């Protein structure tokens, strides 16, 4: 039954419930795919025993006539940013080498309680810092997609959840966890032709997720269609007293609420997202997306978010500032790697450990963060950025008087070749220009595949919604998905 790996989360769940196949067959098929896909470098650690144990539990419950849990029989991939008990968690860094959590992150715990099994830990940009998956201490993830020029260039799966996007696109798992700080779910989803949703900040508990920038970090789901994203997100979300920023709000049944009829809805097209230099193909897809939503019954309105161009520079002050503070905990004392040169004192140990354990991009961001938070510069940079953030959030609050959701491209380019942008940090940062504003305002946003560019690479469309209106985002995403009919998939070369 080799085609079990073509099935999505819903199809697997329903098939296991109906007895069309066993959960063990599903797990074994995926484990085999994972073991054959080393060339993608998507998995850092494979955990077949975990996936099989969850599958056997599902099969046993089914045989006993018990009601199956919501994700019973579904094997998933886990981004290496999530702590899972007894399995090494390194955030794709060298400094966390050997760190094996003795506890379970709230999100992974919820997924396992919902019956999901874990196929392994997914590669990512180191500490989630990157937009191309070239900053992992364990080598780049390679996208399963290739340009249609026959050149076999290794392409970027996007970042930071690039292991997740590559694994889902390559049919190694039907769904994977991602985290999004400034676009790290949506941009890799767009690069690999899958769907991914970042919910409202606070929907998913951050407890047990290795922190990058705490006021922005938010977990979400990545899968091959909108329905699967909804099912998985429902299992991940919910109030957690262990995270003081967790939202104490009920989790709706998003799957049951899916409805692609957008009659009476207004879709805003923010004019500031028309940026010079965006490829014509991406702007054409954007127009096509608006036509699809109109076809679904929505009214299209042009709107303005005047502070859009300041979101990215404000992000690159706030995120490094928070990162420099969060990453101060990695000092070689309590866990992870330790460098102790002969005769070194405590301060030398800290400094040598951090020099050896952090990659170049992580150090760059810690240094920027240290600078903008230092005495004399704090107000000029950090306070100013926090004030601009207020204005960005205010823009969104005002725009919701004119529309229910916003439609934009997900990224200003399709995937690029690994190494093609890595020498210019700002060019790399610009890849998140469409994704960052929603993160700054804590809003739910998702990417759905819209089509292929002339090189045969996927392009994504982004839907941004109001606070707590994941349903509105998913519904608009579903309307696009049904009309785009995106069925392209990467040809297996790995």
């Amino acid at each position, binding site marked *: 039954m080799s085609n079990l790996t073509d099935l999505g989360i819903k199809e697997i769940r329903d098939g296991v419930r109906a007895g069309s196949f066993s959960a063990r067959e599903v797990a074994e098929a995926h484990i085999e795919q994972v073991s054959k896909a080393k060339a993608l470098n998507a998995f850092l650690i494979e955990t077949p025993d975990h996936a099989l144990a969850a599958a056997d539990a599902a099969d046993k419950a089914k045989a006993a006539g018990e009601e199956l849990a919501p994700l019973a029989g579904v094997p998933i991939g886990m981004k290496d940013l999530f702590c899972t008990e007894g399995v090494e968690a390194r955030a794709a860094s060298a400094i966390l080498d050997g760190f094996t959590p003795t506890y379970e992150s709230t999100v992974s715990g919820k997924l396992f309680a919902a019956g999901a099994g874990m196929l392994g830990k997914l590669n990512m940009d180191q500490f989630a810092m990157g937009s191309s998956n070239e900053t992992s201490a364990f080598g780049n993830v390679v996208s399963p997609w290739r340009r249609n020029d026959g050149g076999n260039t290794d392409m970027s799966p996007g970042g930071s959840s690039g292991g997740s996007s590559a694994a889902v696109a390559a049919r190694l798992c039907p769904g994977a966890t991602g985290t999004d700080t400034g676009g790290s779910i949506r941009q890799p989803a767009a690069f690999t032709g899958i769907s991914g949703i970042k919910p409202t900040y606070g929907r998913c508990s951050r407890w047990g997720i290795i922190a990058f920038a705490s006021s922005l970090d938010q977990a979400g789901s990545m899968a091959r269609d909108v329905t699967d994203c909804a099912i998985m997100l429902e299992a991940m979300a919910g109030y957690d007293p262990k995270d003081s*920023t967790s939202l104490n709000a009920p989790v709706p049944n998003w799957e049951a609420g899916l409805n692609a009829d957008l009659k009476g809805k207004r879709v805003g097209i923010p004019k500031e997202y028309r940026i010079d230099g965006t490829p014509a193909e991406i702007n054409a897809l954007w127009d096509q997306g608006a036509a699809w939503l109109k076809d679904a019954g929505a009214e299209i309105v042009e709107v303005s978010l005047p502070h859009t161009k300041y979101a990215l520079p404000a992000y690159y002050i706030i995120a490094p500032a928070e990162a420099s503070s969060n990453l101060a905990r990695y000092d070689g004392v309590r*866990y992870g790697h330790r460098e102790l040169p002969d005769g070194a004192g405590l301060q030398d140990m800290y400094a040598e450990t951090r020099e050896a354990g952090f990659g170049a991009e992580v*150090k760059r961001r810690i240094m*920027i963060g240290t600078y903008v938070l230092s005495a004399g510069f704090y107000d000029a940079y950090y306070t100013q950025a926090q004030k601009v953030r207020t204005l960005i959030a205010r823009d969104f609050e005002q725009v919701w008087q004119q529309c229910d959701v916003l439609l934009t491209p997900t990224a200003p380019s399709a995937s690029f070749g690994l190494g093609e942008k890595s020498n210019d940090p*700002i060019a790399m940062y610009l890849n998140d220009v469409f994704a960052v504003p929603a993160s700054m305002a804590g809003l739910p946003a998702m990417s759905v595949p819209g089509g292929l560019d002339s090189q045969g690479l996927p392009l994504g469309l982004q839907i941004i919604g109001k606070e707590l209106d994941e349903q509105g985002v998913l519904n608009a995403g579903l309307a696009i998905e049904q009309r785009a009919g995106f069925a392209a998939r990467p040809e297996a070369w790995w």
Partner: protein
Amino acid sequence: MSVNEDDVRKMAVLARIAMPDEEIAGLVPELNNILHWVEQLGEVDVTGVEPMASVIHNKQRLRDDVINADPQTAGGVRDKVLANAPMAEHGFFGVPKVIE
């Protein structure tokens, strides 16, 4: 504002990263490019605007003042806490001698 090698060296000390000189020199132009780029935020009129402290409409919560409310996060897990230490002795983290 621009940074020079001395500024970057000072930042490395504050950040507790033992950077060799060539790494410091490489970072100077990179950090300056990024700093010049973020300086466009100075154009924004923020008169009367409060800096954002919380992105969502959520009240600051405090936990109940009880011992061991959650077995994963409260006391009694010394061995688990020490399980990942590069060096642990007698129930403590082991570090080099500190002589001031």
